[in-house]
Each structure stands twice: as structure tokens, then as C-alpha cells.
């Protein structure tokens, strides 16, 4: 049984009712809402004559559907309707909305942190599985379905089974070409896409401590790809430095008080976890996925595996099917895989640091997007990211090299807006899911870091390890000092 962990502490501080039938009713501090998973929830409230209990603790944005060339021109009538319905719902129920014209709009998991809405010790939910991102701040944050969205809107609470915790130690000496994306992909490749099922991760270890907030967000973001509903990291000076002076962070005396409270949010030295794994990154190299789930991945010095490499019959069949879908022959060198599309963005890798890392690779290699690459999209995660990137001139670096510089949104991460890859296209993507059809019907996705995506855009293929050392390391492993 988990005891004395940061998760237990947050849980204990949020009980409304304990253990009725084994489920706890916990209070939700922040509820994030977007256009795709909320309409049926608001409709439910309306039908039952209920109101939103804490509109002041609810925040809505538009991200999934919105076109990224001109967000105001929405040709798809159903997408437009979903956006209009969100507006109407926010107006009727008094929920603040970062609308299309707001200079704070963006992907829900990018703007929560960058506006300082996401704070340590909070319980945070959103009708989106990548809500785990906010765990980077030491918040307990997880995705919920639409019925639960309705439940939180109505009651500001949620019934949950008490959490099981898993400590995920990330240790060793990290090669400078290895990014946070490579670490989380490497972890999932090592332990599988469901090792986290039923657990909340607490990431710990020297490598996590040394990470920037942006890197921690990339790692926590993909906890769900390991099956965990949430993943978090104890807050520290890095967290506080990031949050200080953000628009919605506490100010003055309230800031000092909050910081003192947050500093106590660590797991006790004798805390017990329900499970523990350790991942040593010392030998890790940049990672590229070759299959149709995030665990099907190899390092850049590797090759595409053979189905017969797998003992388990179900797994062998999954790999065979994945290679068929991906049109890859076993034994193909990862660095020989040629790409047609490049997507840099998403809540995994659409922050300023990510764009800096990609821009630095573009500058270092020089030249233009490779003729084989039909489109290379850079989609900032939010208006704030876009503004900052432009202030640093990153947009010019990308545009001069032939990338498209877009307006913020989820874009080709899931292709609910017009940004999709055509059937058969092979995409180097900084997003989080390489499921069949994720980026367009029959499109083929390879998940990579921003630095690797930039390399693929300019060379038309993935870097081998020698190139990684030379080029990606120059991008600081995504640690993104200004270009």
C-alpha cells in the first residue's frame, strides 16, 4: 500500500467523502475544458437544470478543431458548430473562455502551465488524456471522460478509487543528444504501453531533477502512453522559478506563502510505493518509433525488428500488422527511413524550448526543407509561445528554410482540423501517438523529438547516431537556450 508519497498527500488533502463503497469523493481545484469532449456534458447539465458549481475554477479553450492557417475561417461546418456550442455553453454557464481572439489561447495543456493556472498540490482534470502533463508541477492531474466532465462541472468533485503509486526512477548520465522525448519513449519501449495501468507515476531520480519544466512536461505528458492516468514530479526550485510572475500565479505575500506550502510537497524518505521501476538513461540514444503504438520504438543506431523476434504470439501478430501498416521491412535501418511530412508541435513538444531546439538544428544544418518532404509544419502550442518565438526570430529561421509557420492548435497531432497527412504519407512527428490513422486515414507516424523532426525535415530521413551526436547535441538535448 502506498503511504507517505506526494500522491497520498495530495489525495488526503482533497477528500470530501472517504471510502463510500471503496470510492473516494475528491475535490477538484482546476477543471480545464475544450470544445471536443464538453458539449454533451453541458447538454446534460442543461437537461437536468444544473449549473456549474465553480466557474471560477473552470477554464475553457479552443484547440482541437481549430484551423492553424486562419483560425477564423472554419470551413468544416461540424467543427464550427462545436466551437460555437462551446462559446454558447461558456456564456450560459459563466465559464471563462480563451476564445479564438484571445492572446492567451492555445492547447489546453500548454496554456494551463504557462499562465500559472497549473500549480503544485492541485487536483486538475480535463476531458483529455494528456492532462497528465500538468503533473510536472507536482499536481495530481488526469484525463476524464465526458460523463466525468459533467460530474465535475455540476459538483466540482469526482468519485475515484484510491490511487496506487509507482515510483519511476530515471537515473544515469544523459548524452547531450538525448531529449526528454527520447527518455519517455525509451521508458515506454523498455517497460511497455501498459505497465502503468492502474498506477499514478511519481518520476524521480537525478535525471528528472536536472530537467527543465518543459522537459518535465514532455515526460509527464506521455505517462498515459505507458498506461498511467497520471504522472507527477515533486516541485522544486525549478518549478518555482518557472511559475513566479506567471499571470495567474499568486503574487507578493501570497506567493511566498504558496511557495512554503509547495516546498513541503515531497514524498517522505520512508514513503512506500505499490511498485517501483528504474530506468538508466546512460546508454540511451535518440529514439524513433517504427510501429503503431508508442512502445514500438528503436534507438537511431537500431533497425526495424522482425516479428519473429517476439516470443509472445499476440505480440508477434501486433508487430507483423504494425510493419504492414507502416510499410517497413524488418531489418531496415532507422536512419534509412525516409519521410514525406514533418510536424513540430502538440502538447508534448509545442513549447518554446522545443521550437528553439528545432530551430537550432535547422540553423546548424542550413539549407532548405528536403525536396522529398512535401510539407513541414511548425505549430506553436499557444499564442504566448508563438509571440515569444517570433520575438526571438525563430519564425524566420523556420520560414526561410521552407517550413510553414502556423497559428496555435492541436493540428496534425490528431488531425481533427484540416492539418492531416494523406494516405500512405510517412510523418516525422513530435506528437505523442502513432496509432493507425492518427494523423489522417492510413497515414504513417514516427514519433520523435523536435530536434530529430527538424533533422528529418532538412535531410528527408532520420539521423544516425553519429549525426545525432554532431547535430542534435548542438540543440542541447532540447534544453533550448535561446538560439
Amino acid at each position, binding site marked *: 500500500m502506498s503511504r507517505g508519497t506526494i500522491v497520498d498527500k495530495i489525495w488526503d*488533502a482533497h*477528500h*470530501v*467523502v472517504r471510502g463510500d*463503497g*471503496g*470510492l473516494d*469523493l475528491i*475535490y477538484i*481545484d482546476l477543471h480545464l475544458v475544450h470544445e*471536443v469532449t464538453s458539449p*454533451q456534458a453541458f*447538454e446534460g447539465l442543461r437537461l437536468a437544470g444544473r449549473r456549474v458549481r*465553480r466557474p*471560477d*475554477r*473552470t*477554464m475553457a479553450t479552443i484547440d482541437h*478543431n481549430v484551423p492553424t492557417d486562419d483560425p477564423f475561417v472554419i470551413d468544416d461546418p*461540424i*467543427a464550427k*458548430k462545436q466551437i460555437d*456550442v462551446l462559446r454558447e455553453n461558456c456564456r450560459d454557464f459563466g465559464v471563462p473562455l480563451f476564445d479564438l481572439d484571445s492572446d492567451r489561447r492555445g492547447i489546453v495543456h500548454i496554456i494551463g502551465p504557462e499562465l500559472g*493556472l497549473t500549480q503544485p498540490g492541485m487536483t486538475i482534470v480535463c*476531458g*483529455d*488524456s494528456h*492532462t497528465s502533463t500538468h503533473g510536472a508541477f507536482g499536481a495530481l492531474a488526469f*484525463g*476524464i*471522460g*465526458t*460523463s*466525468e466532465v*459533467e*460530474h465535475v462541472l*455540476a*459538483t466540482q468533485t469526482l*468519485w475515484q478509487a484510491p490511487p496506487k503509486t509507482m515510483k519511476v526512477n530515471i537515473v544515469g548520465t544523459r548524452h547531450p543528444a538525448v531529449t526528454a522525448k527520447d527518455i519517455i519513449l525509451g521508458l515506454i519501449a523498455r517497460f511497455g*504501453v*501498459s505497465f502503468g*495501468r492502474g498506477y499514478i507515476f511519481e518520476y524521480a531520480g537525478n535525471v528528472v531533477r536536472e530537467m527543465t519544466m518543459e522537459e518535465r512536461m514532455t515526460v509527464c505528458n506521455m505517462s498515459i502512453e505507458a*498506461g498511467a*492516468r497520471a504522472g507527477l514530479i515533486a516541485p522544486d526550485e525549478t518549478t518555482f522559478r518557472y511559475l513566479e510572475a506567471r499571470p*495567474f500565479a499568486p503574487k507578493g505575500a501570497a506567493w511566498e506563502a504558496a511557495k512554503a506550502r509547495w516546498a513541503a510537497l515531497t514524498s517522505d524518505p520512508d514513503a512506500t510505493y505499490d511498485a517501483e521501476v528504474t530506468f538508466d538513461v546512460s546508454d540511451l540514444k535518440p529514439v524513433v518509433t517504427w510501429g503503431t*503504438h508508442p512502445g514500438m520504438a528503436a534507438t537511431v543506431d537500431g533497425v526495424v525488428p522482425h516479428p519473429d523476434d517476439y516470443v509472445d504470439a*499476440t505480440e508477434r*501478430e*501486433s508487430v507483423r*500488422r504494425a510493419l504492414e501498416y507502416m510499410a517497413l521491412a524488418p531489418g531496415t535501418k532507422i536512419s534509412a527511413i525516409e519521410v514525406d511530412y514533418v510536424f513540430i508541435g502538440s502538447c508534448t513538444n509545442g513549447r518554446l524550448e522545443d521550437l528553439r531546439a528545432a530551430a537550432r538544428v535547422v540553423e546548424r544544418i542550413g539549407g532548405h526543407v528536403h525536396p522529398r518532404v512535401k510539407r513541414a509544419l511548425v505549430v506553436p502550442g499557444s499564442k504566448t509561445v508563438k509571440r515569444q518565438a517570433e520575438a526571438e526570430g525563430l519564425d524566420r529561421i523556420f520560414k526561410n528554410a521552407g517550413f510553414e509557420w502556423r497559428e496555435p492548435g492541436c493540428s496534425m497531432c*490528431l*488531425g*481533427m482540423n484540416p492539418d492531416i497527412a494523406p494516405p500512405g504519407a510517412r510523418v516525422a512527428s513530435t506528437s505523442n*501517438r502513432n*496509432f*493507425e*490513422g*492518427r494523423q489522417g*486515414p*492510413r497515414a504513417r507516424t514516427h514519433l520523435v523529438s523536435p530536434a530529430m523532426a527538424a533533422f528529418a525535415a532538412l535531410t528527408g530521413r532520420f539521423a544516425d547516431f553519429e549525426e545525432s551526436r554532431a547535430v542534435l547535441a548542438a540543440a542541447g538535448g532540447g534544453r533550448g537556450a535561446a538560439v
Partner: protein
Amino acid sequence: MQPFDVHTGLVVPLDRANVDTDQIIPKQFLKRVERTGFGQFLFYDWRYLPDGTPNPDFILNQAAYRGATILLTRENFGSGSSREHAPWALADYGFRAVLAPSFADIFYNNAVKNGLLPVVLPKSAIEALFDRAAEGPFEATIDLAAQTVALSDGTTYAFDIHPEHQRRLLRGEDDIAVTERYLASIEAYEAAHPLPPLVK
């Protein structure tokens, strides 16, 4: 929500692991603002060929499985996104239960909230059911109160379910109505933990 108590129906085997919610209901169908009508898009990219005609190779399209109400599948069913459209689509298509060795957490919760019973069976039981399916279509009876899955030949498998999930499914109870009975506790919590408005 429709209560679940005892259900007998045709079992359709979907022999794949890690079936993700993008496959259950592809994103191009998430733009509706209603809860209904998703069944027609269930497993869309597997069920239909690129030209829009039914894929004869896909199991749900085979005549023998028309009217199936119980889905038999492999581990980690429902991984990926939080979209409740996945259980909506399964239920709207006519499924009442899914049998698998394991489910993704969010999918599991979403299914329970929609009267779609996720039945976790041991791997060996799932294996035996797939073997049974290889011999031809068969029916099963799921008794939620007794926590059993029974075949007509008398073979019975027991399953576990959280008692609270079981209770709510049996009653078909609306979660919000249950919670509203605890309003005094919520108010007491709020009084003891005042939270300043965060978003103004």
C-alpha cells in the same frame, strides 16, 4: 443509464491487443455535439474499405456475427484518448459488454458510466474463449450480480468488479444524483478549504 443485470448475447471475437480509442472511433467522428449516433462509425477504418464499402474481412461485417452484443478481445483494450465517444459507439452499435484480460483505466471508467460492462477475465479464460470462437459463433450469459460469464455448455468464468461500480451498473444510477446526496459534505469541504477564484 441503462441498468445491467443479466445479459445473454452473441460473442464476437476481435483478436487484437491494445485496441486504442482511435480505432474504436476515429477522430473525424468526434465533432458531433450529441451522445447518440456513434454506432455507425464504430471501428470505422477497419469496418470499411477506403471506398466506403464494408470490409468483408472484418469480423463485425460477417453475417454470422450480425447482432453480436458481447465483444471478446485482448489486453489493454481502450488505450489512448479519454474520448467517451468510444463506449458511446460500442453501446450505440449494440454492445452490452466487453470481455478482455485488461482495459485502459479511462476507458474502463467511461464504459461503466454508460452501462457498458467491462469484464476482466484471466488470460487463460480469454484464451479459452478465443479457442471456443474458432469453432464457430457462440452465445454467453453475463450475470453481473453473480459476477459470472456462462456458456451454454455449462462452462462458467468468474470475474471481479469493484463493488461500487457493480452497484451503480445494477441500478443504472446517475452518478451526479448520487453525489448530490453529499452536498453538505462538499459545502463543508469548501468552507474548510477556501479556494480563491483562480480564473477571473
